């Protein structure tokens, strides 16, 4: 039994917003795989819940006329990983969310919950950062669209305003088309584990192995997921080489700020930043059609 004192089902996003407005103590629940655990651990007591599970539209994955891929906030990891649109246009996201927990967790956990939970170890975040994902947020005052980078405020803190619902994650065409991407989750175990460090790289090639574009995002390298803008800058326009990889890795290290916790020390995470950045870059390069010489 969970310490829940009130539970309501919203049929539409508007209804969810109304229920949240009516009760400032109320929280949204999607898959519950973060929230229920917090209730179990006593971090939330006398919980009052508004469920998004009945809102069918929030589970949708679709593509707009302009090529924008839309992922409903309540789409589960399993659904995303197996969805033809995702596999076709952003396979790296499918790979990334396949690394979450185990199959049962992926069947219940949603991408919206993953983002709104706000932790730096989120397995969807690095890839979404690298893809310049946009978030559609609906609230009493209307709708806004925010870059995911701006949404993360601090550990476990996101820019979710009173009575606001994350409804969609948007990936615009110019941010995924022609990119090759790779995600590495580094953890003790191959499954059922939280990343000690995670790294998503996407890149685009022109001509003979020239890096037309490159984006590198990391999880657990700082209090929130982050991009390594300087490392990206260094790579852009250069011909791919081992040299470039080394430089990218070295630069990434200068941009991060991991902390020491019982899970791993700062020094170890720095090592992983450097190493995984290189590995992810290399794989992304290959997937983008680059040729290793």
């Amino acid at each position, binding site marked *: *039994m*969970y*310490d*829940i*004192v*009130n*539970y309501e*089902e919203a049929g539409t996003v508007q209804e969810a917003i109304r229920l949240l407005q009516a009760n400032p103590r109320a929280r949204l629940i999607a898959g*519950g*795989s973060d929230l*229920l*655990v917090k209730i*179990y*651990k006593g971090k939330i007591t006398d919980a009052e819940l508004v*469920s998004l*599970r009945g809102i069918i539209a929030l589970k949708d994955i679709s593509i707009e006329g302009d090529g924008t891929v839309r992922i409903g906030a309540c789409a589960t990891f*399993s659904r995303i990983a197996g969805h033809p649109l995702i596999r076709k246009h952003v396979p790296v996201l499918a790979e990334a969310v396949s690394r979450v*927990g*185990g*199959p*049962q*967790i992926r*069947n*219940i956990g949603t991408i919206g919950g993953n983002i709104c939970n706000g932790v730096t170890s989120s397995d969807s975040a690095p890839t979404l950062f690298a893809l310049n994902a946009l978030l559609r947020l609906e609230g009493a005052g209307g709708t806004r669209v925010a870059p995911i980078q701006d949404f993360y405020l601090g550990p476990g803190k996101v820019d979710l305003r009173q009575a606001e619902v994350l409804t969609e994650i948007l990936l615009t065409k110019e941010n995924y088309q022609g990119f090759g991407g790779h995600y590495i989750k580094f953890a003790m175990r*191959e*499954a*059922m584990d939280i990343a000690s460090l995670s790294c998503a790289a996407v890149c685009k090639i022109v001509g003979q192995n020239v890096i037309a574009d490159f984006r590198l995002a990391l999880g657990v390298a700082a209090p929130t997921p982050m991009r390594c803008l300087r490392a990206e800058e260094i790579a852009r326009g250069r011909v791919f080489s081992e040299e470039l990889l080394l430089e990218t890795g070295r630069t990434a290290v200068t941009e991060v700020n991991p902390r020491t916790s019982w899970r791993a020390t700062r020094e170890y995470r720095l090592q992983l930043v450097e190493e995984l950045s290189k590995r992810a870059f290399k794989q992304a390069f290959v997937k983008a059609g680059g040729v290793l010489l």
Partner: protein
Amino acid sequence: MITKKINCTVNGRQVSIEVDIRASLLDVLRDSLHLTGVKKGCAVGECGACTVLINGEPYDSCIYLAVWADGQVINTIEGECKEGRLSKVQQAFVDEGAVQCGFCTPGLIMSTTAMLQSGKKFTREEIKAELSGHMCRCTGYQNIIKAAQKALED
């Protein structure tokens, strides 16, 4: 105590029951429906012992609120042996020595059953990945994987 009436199918039977909004599906299956083959090893999605199939997919019933079961088709280990005959997966677990203390077994059988019912083919590595949401302390998984391979053959 707030309750909600739900209608669902459990092991092929229509069930209509008032559930406490605080209850997990695990609580209701075990305490109200006495389906105690569904085990609790952690209560928070970490061990897989409580795995049941919901519309054919494996879920940790401990982190699935009972009210969500409304309208769903649920299968637990108790429904797998029909007319005294073990299912293909159950039989494979028996034959391959995949059972020791047995506490993880019902959950693993349900996940394997979902794989079988999907009709897909699985490599050994894929089987390992599909079963990776289950902890087993006794078997080192080896005979479990063997049993799954056997059940999924042909």
